[in-house]
């Protein structure tokens, strides 16, 4: 890595902050949409028909942006039976191995997903008529961001990130 560690750390913090902001906004949006849905069903003669669909799509984006944010904190759910049993240096290698697996899988998924987005771009969602590419983009973007975050764990072998708001479950 040619960039200085502090520059990298800053960049990472900016990306993670963006991911969290987007995910939290979508969760708030889901809540508002659900409330709107039952409110309009009782208050209006013709209830809104797009809230159900939009709330599902907001949820999908929340899942993948939230997953990227969790990756920035190394806070995805893991099982640590083995890595707790072995020595500290062996444990670092296990963390590096896991990070390598995550990176390969994320790169494949995100890269291959781009072609799928292209295929789906002509399809429109039933209620709102948005291109399905915008919805299928959620996992593609999510996995691309997970790749970026996971590089750090591959290099350092550290499974625990300090100072995060999310408690890592390790």
């Amino acid at each position, binding site marked *: 890595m040619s960039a200085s560690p502090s520059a990298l750390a800053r960049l990472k913090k900016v990306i993670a902050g963006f991911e969290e902001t987007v995910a939290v906004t979508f969760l708030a949006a889901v809540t508002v949409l*659900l409330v709107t849905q039952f409110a309009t069903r009782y208050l209006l003669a013709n209830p809104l028909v797009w809230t159900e669909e939009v709330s599902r799509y907001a949820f999908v984006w929340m899942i993948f942006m*939230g997953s990227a944010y969790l990756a920035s904190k190394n806070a995805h759910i893991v*099982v640590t039976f*083995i890595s707790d049993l072995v020595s500290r240096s062996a444990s670092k290698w296990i963390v590096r191995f896991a990070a390598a697996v995550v990176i390969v*899988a994320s790169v*494949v998924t995100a890269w291959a997903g781009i*072609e799928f987005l292209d*295929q789906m771009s002509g399809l429109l969602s039933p209620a709102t008529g948005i291109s399905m590419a915008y919805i299928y983009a959620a996992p593609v973007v999510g996995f691309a961001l997970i790749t970026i975050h996971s590089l750090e764990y591959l290099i350092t072998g550290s*499974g625990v990130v300090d100072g995060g*708001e999310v408690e890592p479950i390790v």
Partner: protein
Amino acid sequence: MSISILILLLLVLILLRVPVGFALLVPSLLYIVFDPQATFGIAIQQLMNGGNSFALLAIPMFVLLGNLANASGITDRMYDFASASLRGVRGGLAYVNVGTSVGFSLVSGAAISDAAAMGKIQVPQMVKRGYPAGFSLGLTGASSLIAPMVPPSIPAVVYAITAGVSVSSLFVAGIFPALVITLLFIAYVALKMRKLTTVQEGDEKGVGAKRLWILFLRTLPAVGAPVIVLGGILAGYFTPTEASAAGVVYVLVLGLIYRGLNPKALLGALRTSTATSASIMFIVVNAALFGWVLARERVPQELAESVLGLTENPFVFLILLNLVLLAIGAIIEPTSAILILVPVLAPLAPLFGLDPIHMGIVIIFNLMIGLLTPPIGLVLFTLSEVTGYPVKTVIRGAVPFYGIMLVALAAISFVPLMLGIG
């Protein structure tokens, strides 16, 4: 690509500290690589659609409901009242844990929602009172399985539709088993409390009737949350997902009135809820992709057919059925398992003289136990996520409950058969 190798790979990756979601993703990607008739596009499709479900929206809403209840001080008030009124009762909070799950089961159709809401609130309180963490986690997880046994129940609706039986009959049929499970848990708690000398109940010595009444009045508005959620569903104002959102709004308003909820606390609750929901759902979406692989290779059907081809005796059949379901429940999420298995299993019921409704209850409870069983136990992961305890602590805590649930499973499977109503 041999399916047994893929399942082995899944287990190895989980043990090697690969996040559970990725441990499901990697074998699925390998399957796609080796299948000339599949492209990686299918991975994206299954990952997105794994989360694209209105019913699943209840999960983030119930997580948010729990966090807002904490942030607004509502949980504290309930806790004050519950601990004051249960002072001196050995195992009070443990009974409260089972009891609230029974209450919650009337509102929620999914075990994960119960585990998310109850785990967040009750486990820390129990640990504070000296209950072992494992016991608290195990009890919370096991009692969360009552939710899908009692109406409303998402798996029951899916089973009824798939098997072509009456939804309401299945609902009614779930009540007796739920009662059996509840009583077994209560009996276990009573037994366990003799050994748990570290537990301190009743530190509010000298709380008089007047103080209790004041605490009750302070708590009363908080009771409105479950009333809105439960009443809203039963009276027909909301679907379960909407009801959870209505509960969120109620708690929000209450929190503003209590002044316990400022914008900072509200944002904090939103952030925690986002992280928790994403963490659970990341496994759910990857499990959907892995489930697609298993369905495409007809794994559950072949497993079921080969095992069930062995006998004509209904008792042996039920034992085999239970073994198959426990194995499948340990690796597949219940709704997918029902959709894949029931078309194969339902036609077998009459051949063994079994009632398809009875078999539905057996199938649902088996798959619920799978939610608490490694490697893919979504309730285990949910509890770990909302409480911050490692997954292994949750699993250790769940171990004694496997025994109890197997007793309950035996009762649910064989008692109706012995009474001739199977």
